[in-house]
């Protein structure tokens, strides 16, 4: 693994063992700490990023599995923090502690790209990330607002 394509830039990771999970490469090697560690086993969704537009749990994805894939993290989701999902999260004052919300928004953005008009059941299934503060009802409202805005 010589390079990774992260937020539109080729980043040198030639000194990183290829089995290293992308999460720790983003955080420790590339200084992109917006992506969070929550469980390390793909149970909570805090580390969710996009690879070629698909939501991926970076804690269980070795960099060797990414290849030429285009990685987008929260730092690259929008130029000025104004992605419709971020705006909807702001409108509904979703975050409490805020720790899981980056992963929540990355999951939401990928879900809406694939399914622009999610039903309540779609949201219950698609937004599986854990939030221990309990912001779920506001997340549900924000997803619907973002879906409306993205149409």
């Amino acid at each position, binding site marked *: 693994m010589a390079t990774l394509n992260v937020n539109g830039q080729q980043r040198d990771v030639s000194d990183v*063992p290829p089995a*290293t*999970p992308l999460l*720790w*490469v983003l*955080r*420790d*090697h590339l200084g*992109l*700490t*917006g*992506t*969070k*560690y*929550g*469980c*390390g*086993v793909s*149970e*909570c969704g*805090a580390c969710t990023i996009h690879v070629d537009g698909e939501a991926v749990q970076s804690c269980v994805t070795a960099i060797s599995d990414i290849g030429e894939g285009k990685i987008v*993290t*929260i*730092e690259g989701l929008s130029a000025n*923090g104004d992605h419709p999902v*971020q705006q909807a*999260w*702001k409108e509904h*004052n979703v*975050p*409490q*502690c*805020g*720790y*899981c*919300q*980056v992963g929540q*928004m990355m999951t939401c953005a990928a879900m809406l790209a694939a399914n622009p008009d999610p039903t309540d059941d779609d*949201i*219950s*299934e698609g*937004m*599986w*990330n*854990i*939030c*221990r*503060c*309990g*912001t*779920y*009802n*506001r*997340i*549900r409202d924000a997803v619907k607002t973002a879906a409306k805005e993205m149409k």
Partner: protein
Amino acid sequence: MSSSSQDLTLREMIERSRLETEVKTKTSTPVKRRDFLKGIAAGSLIILCSPDGTTTAARTKDLANNQNLSPSLFVAVEPDGTVQVLAHRSEMGTGIRTALPRVLADELSADWDKVVIRQAKGDRRLGDQNTDGSNSIRFFYKTMRTAGATARNMLEQAAANRWEVDVKDVSTSNHTVYLNGVKKKLEFHQLVEDARKLEAPKAEDLRFKSPQEFQYIGKKFPIADMDAILTGEAIFGIDAHIEGQVHAVVARCPVVGGVVESYDSDAAKAVKGVIDVIELPRFQGAPVFQQLGGIAVVAENTWAALQGREALKVRWNEGPNADYDTEEFMAALTATVQANGQVMRAEGDAATAIADAPKAVQATYTVPHLSHAPMETTCAVADVKTDEAGKVISCYLKAATQNPQAVQQAVGPAMGIPNDEVYCDVTLLGAGFGRKSKPDYCVEAALLSRRVKRPVHVTWTREDDFQHDYFHTISAVHCEAGLNEDGSPAGWLMRAAYPSISSTFNLQAQSPASWEAEMGLTDLPYDVPNVQVEVGQAKAHTRIGWLRAVCHIFQNFAVSSFADELAHAAGRDPYEYLLSTLGEDRELDLAKLKLGNRGASAQDYPYDIGRLKNVLTRVATESKWSRHNDLPRGKGLGIACCRSFLGYTGHVVEVSVSPQGSVSVDNVWVSIDAGTIVSLDRVLAQVEGATIMGISQAMYGEMPMKKGRAIHSNFDGFQVAKISDSPNSINIDIVKSEAAPGGVGETGIGSFAPALCNAIFAATGERVRNLPIKNHDLSWG
């Protein structure tokens, strides 16, 4: 255990532990000024507010020269009009980092866009920084108002002097002082130079705003960290960085008190990126906030440290707690509460009243260990400075901590330095729920930094978090009542047994403390002539800590479930039964009942049965309670109420239970009276969050232990609520009140679980007395 130590409250235990362990210096430590003043422009008007509520006006020059002026909570109005406010409580999701500065800004009539929030380091001179117990607004509402009013009054006086009018003829809004009735105004920045030459007004002369004039207090406003959170720029403990830092993870004995027997240091060091393998000693005496001990792997990055730890192959000598088995322990607790215990409250003769009553009811309720599981695990980075001889001079940390003073208190003795030489910056917390009031992880970072002579960032994995928590206790509560002919209780007896949080501070503590029993048990609000409350022995075999809502989790579960059982036994409507059993509007005689009231005065914070009945009545109305008899089988409404953390809640929960036994929380209604409200939207958010946490605790929450170890290691085993568990609606009714501010963050938990289980009973006829609900077969039909 002596009764004197049993009577110590949590804060008193923490303080005693500090006094016992603090490294004393021969000469008094010079007051550090530089850090305090850094970032405040020269020529600012500075108002210092000491924790006791007195205020002083000061200039930057005075602060630099006068050693007697203690750094305190402060507001500084700079020459350009910028207002700097010190936030000294930790932000873990409650919005407190925004709310308290908003209180000050409101009294100051400041333009919020010109307010800068500075996060304070740990410093005893700032007063209480232990961000727990739902205390922040209660403790500091008045202080922040006083500080804001002092600064505004001085700016108003400066304007009045300029215009040569009486100060009564001026008014202030939005960073500007106006001369009433005339088109004259002066902005704050035009007044700072004059204002700072004035004496601060005396407390009795301060002119405060009336609640009608509040601009921010009680209104909706966003959290100050919103944009940083939404863009990923917010810095949490796991993100904290000190130049040159290395990363560490620690292998700790899965059984509390165990020590290392053997490990393979070479295998760990062979992993690429591993720098060193370091043995950490086991804690001494009671755990308090000390490190657990174990083997640390220090590496260039987190993944290398994790790989190194895998290679260690540690063998442990597990010690005396290795036979701890919660199934056996719960059986023992349940047996304990069937027999007489130590009396904590007694009026009349409960036993005789129960024996003589026409009908007697009894039930035993249990709640297992719970984990905090904040989404961010415990993390800190420490940088230890040593002199040429290797002696530690100071330690600087950045930590996700609810209590930076506890960090000083724990790290100081571990480093052999005075607590004042421990400097702790507080990051944002990826939630805490009580776990991050206990800084064992900060001690680990400091011990390792001292050894490797570089800043060390310690990361706990989720497995570490679940295995080495300060767990919520494990409990059994037995209730008995005798009912009169009309169904009203003639006598009420309760016995509780659970390992005490005190055991984390004092190895001799082997029964619940009075301050624990006061959370829902000894403060029984019902108007019953014969009451007895007892506690039984229960020795801790793991670290016991406080988790959001603490003993209310299981004591209100028992009390409010039992009240519902009595209503059904009496053949009466549960809501009407609660209302009549609460009795006349009155205040409980806290002194006579020897109830601590969380350290608050009974005058400011009476136990007001009228307010409790009010939230109960309001939630019954909001939820249209009267329809509960018309619901089909499988649908049910449940009701409960309690006073917790000096706030009052009434809950109605609507559930569906499928014929196969699957439970769905459909709708929730909450009425909350927390007195004066500061941040309306965050109060709503806290109550919404408490509902979801209540679902986690009641439906799924349990951390069983076998052979001394927690058996769940991640979220696949320790199940928590997800969005699919969230109710269709959480309907929150906040009682408008000018009463002294009570608690909010934890208050929304206490009456939720019993309302839920009461609803399940209404839906199915099955009474859930042993949480979690998931362990019960609720199928019907």
